């Protein structure tokens, strides 16, 4: 964000900024730390097709799985889909293009993009199906897969508290992919429990500096 304050708006207003064919990152791990208010608004709006970068699809009736069930997703990079069987059905039917990524690779690919790096050199996936079609790079006699950065048009993330500038703090394992995704999208929309005044967050404990956050949306407890 490059204004003095982050924009505060409703979830419906925020997700209206997502356009068809865009790539959207969504935080959360098995629905914990997912921005449910934003996801539900995106389901209501029905924007399609969109491409997703997520660590898992949540459940068919909660979290990211709702977007899958609503047939809004044409393509995704994802690590785990087991709790949302609809994904497998749409894959098998050729309706969704799903790239499975080791979770530690996926988070580094997102980080690389936000950090201006050209990719990730990881040993994970060597000797497995994951290595297919990817360059292998030798460094000091060891082999690594080169995995490319992953960037999004919009990141939908979840945090615990924000100040009006957009500085964010998290709670427990709500963190997961959220802080990294915040850095890797052109537009980052954060769903938070509470927005406090600038100066009310301890500068020692801010985990996402406000430069990464454009829009704040209140969390609707379901």
């Amino acid at each position, binding site marked *: 964000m490059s204004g003095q304050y982050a924009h505060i708006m409703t979830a419906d207003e925020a997700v209206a900024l997502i356009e068809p064919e865009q790539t959207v990152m969504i935080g959360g791990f098995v629905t914990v730390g997912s921005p449910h208010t934003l996801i539900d608004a995106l389901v209501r709006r029905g924007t399609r097709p969109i491409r997703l970068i997520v660590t898992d699809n949540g459940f068919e009736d909660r979290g990211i799985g709702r977007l899958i069930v609503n047939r809004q997703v044409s393509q995704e990079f994802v690590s785990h889909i087991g709790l949302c069987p609809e994904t497998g059905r749409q894959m098998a039917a050729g309706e969704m293009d799903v790239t499975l990524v080791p979770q530690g690779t996926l988070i580094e690919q997102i980080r690389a993009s936000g950090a201006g790096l050209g990719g990730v050199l990881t040993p994970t*996936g060597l000797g497995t199906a994951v290595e297919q079609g990817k360059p292998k790079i030798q460094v000091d006699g060891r082999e690594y897969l080169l995995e490319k950065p992953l960037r999004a048009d919009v990141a939908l993330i979840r945090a615990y508290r924000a100040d009006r500038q957009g500085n964010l703090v998290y709670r427990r*394992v709500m963190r997961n992919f959220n802080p990294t995704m915040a850095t890797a999208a052109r537009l980052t929309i954060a769903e938070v429990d509470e927005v406090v005044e600038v100066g009310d967050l301890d500068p020692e404990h801010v*985990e996402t500096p406000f430069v990464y956050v454009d829009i704040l949306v209140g969390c609707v407890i379901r």
Partner: protein
Amino acid sequence: MAADRDSRRDWIARRAAMELRDGDVVNLGIGLPTTVAGFVPPGIRVVFQSENGVLGLGPRPAPGDEDADLIDAGGGYVTVVPGACFFDSAAAFNMIRGGHIDVAILGALQVDELGNLANYIIPGKRVPGIGGGMDVATGARRVIGVTELMASDGTCKLVPRCTLPLTAAGEVNLIITDYGVIEVTPEGLVVQELAPDVQPEDLTSRTAARLRFIRKL
């Protein structure tokens, strides 16, 4: 060997827990591996890490005490012990891939003479995805595969070469099954210990993998 499945799985988990050393940092896979936490011997204090961002997992919370923001990588509610800490996924996987996890205990669909591990795709069934398993198997200092020897379809999970898609190549150090404990060495598989009432032939007759026995068992 205990006849009922629960007892056999408990034996595997208890035996795996005996591999843990005081102070070990441990990552447990979903399913059978998760049950290992319940068998850590008295006097041994280990710390459980979960790749969704917590070091210092405690037991399941009492009903009503669940914290909506505190689950493990299997999606179950957990607690934390004093001295625990939270971090994001990038930090969690740095810890894993960087070799800072002493022991990973992972389930297996197949494991082979080279220490190859296959544990994420069952042919003909839904693909659940990869998750953190590849990173954990690749990064942990010591990888222990735990599994019943025989799959429900009657095939043996200990094989000369994995035929299922691999999770990690050559990363498994020890295999603990309901028939015994098998070490993966540069010279092949070495049976270190047989489960109670198991004879060497019970094992050799079921697997096509080449086995050596460490001594008269």
